[in-house]
């Protein structure tokens, strides 16, 4: 039975102002049930205010083989980091 149910990726927003974060995956027959299963599996300890479910098959992922061409060139460009100015006090979520 489980083999026939597609896999879904679950994204949970823990509170307003934050973005949805990948929480895990689950099996469900359709999107509506995936949402409910996600509620039961990933928000039972009051972790969330919003849930997204996405069919895992719809996600295109970068390959580990492409890691160097994809990510290495950014390693030696420190000027891209926002570390050259002071963050004013009171700014949150940075």
């Amino acid at each position, binding site marked *: *039975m489980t083999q026939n149910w597609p896999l879904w990726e679950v994204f949970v927003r823990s509170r307003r102002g934050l973005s949805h974060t990948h929480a895990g995956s689950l099996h469900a027959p359709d999107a509506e049930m995936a949402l409910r299963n996600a509620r039961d599996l990933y928000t039972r300890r009051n972790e969330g205010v919003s849930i997204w479910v996405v069919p895992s098959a719809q996600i295109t992922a970068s390959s580990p083989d492409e890691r160097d061409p994809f990510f290495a060139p950014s390693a030696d460009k420190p000027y891209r980091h926002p570390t050259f100015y002071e963050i004013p006090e009171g700014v949150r979520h940075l």
Partner: protein
Amino acid sequence: MTATETTHATPAGPSAVPAAALALGDDALVLSHRLGEWAGHAPVLEEEVALANIALDLLGQARVLLSMAGDEDELAFLREERSFRNLQLVEQPNGDFAHTIARQLYFSLYQHLLWTELAAGQGPFAPLAAKAVKETAYHVDHAVQWTVRLGDGTEESTRRMRAGLDALWKYTGEMFRPVEGVDVDGAALEQRWLAELDDVLSRARLDPPEGPRTGAWRAGAGREGLHTEPFGRMLAEMQHLHRSHPGASW
């Protein structure tokens, strides 16, 4: 209490509250145990967690209610079968998954209407009902989602859903019998229940079950301590640990 409220006395005095709490608490406790029996046996892991979550909601409700009636552990673990006041519907064995969903559909629809009504009032159950109504709304949603999928699914799922609804139909009449100390209009509740059930079943492309809504036992029997045969075995399993090791704790 204001003068107006004292002149318009509720149907039951304060002495009826523990008895009413026992009846509603036993419903929640017994159904919680039945749902807990799915642990390790559910068709898929996700559904096992869903059923366990519902069971835990009900156990929480049962603890509050039984504490209004006495010592929760004594009431749950040391009473004999004839002292339980739950509906016969909730003690019915799980059967297959569709059978469990049919039981959930019948009971959750009823319990949601009941908590909604009690939450709107000023009675002793209002604080619990206000919290429980949200939990029960989810139980209804779970049962409805599955009823629609199984009812309007494959030939086999339709057959099983149909069988579950038919088999449990005769236990549904008891839910609307008056319980002393529970200030709701059973007949009005029943009309709303039938209307909501009808709506769900039409979405599931299922005809409403036919036949009487009470069994060989007259309606109200569970509330008077008369239970069906499988209940004794369920109680034996539920109570044996506490009875074998009195006073044991985690």
